[in-house]
């Protein structure tokens, strides 16, 4: 049978959908579906909110179309089906000396999802977003496949990259991989005492990969303390990571209670010696630390969680500090908080990145989280920044639309590509993103 009615959720497990889902295993089956019953594509559903949901509508699960269609070992040019996962590509190509050009925080994300969200990684300040390395996209349309590139159908290309799947399912893409020295990472970890030092270190960092972990519960003088990780690829012998522990059940609410989080964070911070240290890690351990525990989202219990992620321009760093102060004072933060310097690289009209600082914090879905997040959204808007749609579950239409300056142009392009709204998803409806 083609369709199966499935209950599914965003990664944060706050929003849910129930809808008929098709899961084609051949390109010809995908073409038929898009011709006869066009529907939005979904992948591994690693978007936190409702970007991967089409409640009551239909959806096409792309995960079985995950093959490498071609690879040039000289140039590193990869042709791959959209359902392939970034972590799988890493496993295949790292031993050959090539890396996916940009890797988001989870290796389970698919190539199609990485394009549709124009994801960024720990090398964003230098390499830009995922879409910056995509040289060609094959889009499935009801009239057949259509090839897009930065030079051919350029407007549609820019509407598809970061375009939340609204231009149609991506069947395959050509992606330029990056050269790597080997399949390990040489990581330097440094303890950072507070906010100002953190920004100074991020600004001065010359590492290819850099990311900051924040103790989002620390207040006063310790506000903004954390660990800065800087890394380069390297060659050497390290046993590969053991994968695949599962969380067997939903954790009780106290697992992420304020006291436990504060204690955990303090210990985690002290784990790195005063003087810092350099360690060698398997490449996937560095890029996808959380993937080792499958279903880690269950740690937040049945009610789920939110991730708030914003980026603000460099000159608005003071506003970000105020936001962090507000978060630390709320008692709602979880251990997962990340601060990173972003470069200007973005490839689509609706891409998230901008030159500045990005902050991401998880909050259990409990009383007060909604209000805090909407306060943070307002502060982001006031600072001239934007929030990340791959994470959002709560924002209001006006707030978001003001943050994305090319939205109106995008909506026009999308309307031409999908006049009947076949590819609408829950997030696009909620934020009225396609209104022209």
């Amino acid at each position, binding site marked *: *049978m*083609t*369709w*199966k009615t499935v209950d599914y959720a965003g990664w944060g497990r706050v929003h849910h959908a129930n809808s008929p889902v*098709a*899961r*084609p*295993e*051949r*390109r*010809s*089956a995908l073409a038929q579906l898009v011709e006869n019953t066009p529907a939005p594509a979904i992948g591994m559903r690693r978007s936190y909110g409702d970007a991967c949901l089409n409640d009551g509508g239909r959806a096409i699960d792309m995960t*079985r179309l995950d*093959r*490498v*269609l*071609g*690879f040039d070992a000289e140039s590193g040019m990869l042709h791959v*089906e959209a359902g392939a996962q970034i972590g799988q590509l890493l496993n*295949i190509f790292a031993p050959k000396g090539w890396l996916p050009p940009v890797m988001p925080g989870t290796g389970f994300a698919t190539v199609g999802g990485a394009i549709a969200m124009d994801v960024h990684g720990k090398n964003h300040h230098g390499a830009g977003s995922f879409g910056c390395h995509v040289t060609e996209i094959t889009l499935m349309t009801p009239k057949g496949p259509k090839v897009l590139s930065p030079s051919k159908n350029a407007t549609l290309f820019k509407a598809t990259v970061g375009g939340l799947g609204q231009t149609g399912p991506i069947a395959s893409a050509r992606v330029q991989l990056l050269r790597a020295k080997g399949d390990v990472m040489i990581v330097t970890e440094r303890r950072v005492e507070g906010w100002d030092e953190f920004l100074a270190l991020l600004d001065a960092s010359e590492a290819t990969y850099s990311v900051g972990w924040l103790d989002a519960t620390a207040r006063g003088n310790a506000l903004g303390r954390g660990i800065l990780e800087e890394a380069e690829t390297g060659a050497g012998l390290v046993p590969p990571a053991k994968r695949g522990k599962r969380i067997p059940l939903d954790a009780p609410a106290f697992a992420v209670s304020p006291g436990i989080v504060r204690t955990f964070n303090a210990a985690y911070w002290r784990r790195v010696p005063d003087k810092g240290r350099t360690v060698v890690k398997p490449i996937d351990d560095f890029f996808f630390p959380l993937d080792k525990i499958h279903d880690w989202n269950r740690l937040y219990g049945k009610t789920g969680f939110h991730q708030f992620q914003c980026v603000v321009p460099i000159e608005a760093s003071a506003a970000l500090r105020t936001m962090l102060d507000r978060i630390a004072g709320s008692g709602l933060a979880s251990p997962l908080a990340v601060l990173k310097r972003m470069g200007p690289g973005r490839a689509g009209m609706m891409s998230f990145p901008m030159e500045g600082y990005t902050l991401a914090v998880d909050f259990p879905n409990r009383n007060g989280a909604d209000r805090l997040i909407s306060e943070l959204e307002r502060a982001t808007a006031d600072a001239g920044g934007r929030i990340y749609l791959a994470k959002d579950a709560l924002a209001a239409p006006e707030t978001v639309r003001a943050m994305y300056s090319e939205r109106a142009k995008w909506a026009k392009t999308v309307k031409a590509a999908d006049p009947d709204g076949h590819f609408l998803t829950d997030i696009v409806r909620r934020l009225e993103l396609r209104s022209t």
Partner: protein
Amino acid sequence: MAQTWIILGATSTIARCFARQLADRGEGVVLAGRDIADMTATAADCAARGALLAEVIAFDARDSASFKPILARARDISGTISVAIFVGSMPPQEQIDIDPSLIHGTVIDSFTGPAEFLGLIAPLLEERGSGTIIGVGSVAGDRGRIGNYVYGAAKAGFHTYLSGLRNRLGRAGVHVMTVKPGTVDTAMTWGLEKLPFLARPEKVASDILRGADKQKDTLYTPIIWWPVMTVIRLIPERIFKKLRI
């Protein structure tokens, strides 16, 4: 030791996973089936993963003229040749009950086509004195049930054929393994009502590979089907005929 696998029915979900895992180990694959475009994509995938060789060739269980070119190709490849068969078709039983002429095609796809092919290629493996033959049957072949007894009968025939072939080729150093998978999460089962012990195709493929490495004769995958089918086989026919399982 590197070997080359002729994979019949290479467009099947389990076969695709199996080919990938062989490619990850650096073995060669010749993908045989009807949908050339789809197999070309799988072959490219296998090549990128490190397959010694990754080729596509036409195979149609109902057209025995397609068998010879595969045999000729296999002869040209040096070293150990192994064969894995993932061919079969399962029209809904209700449809067959209305139109019994469908039985013929089901039996060709699931039994006599692959058996004829194996009969042709067996001497090559015997001659080389090495290799493995994997025949994918089904737990449905263990007992005739109201839900799919024609498919089950065809697979039961295939199982018996494989057991005889094992008896014959074992003495020439060629191992034959019969695989009996339960229900697997593929396009064939997508959307069917709740199926018991539904297995991921990757898991079934890795079970098959491990079973072949260990030279198992008969492999139930996932393993839960071994006790389940043992019980089902033991139910007296007098009771079984009244059941609907």
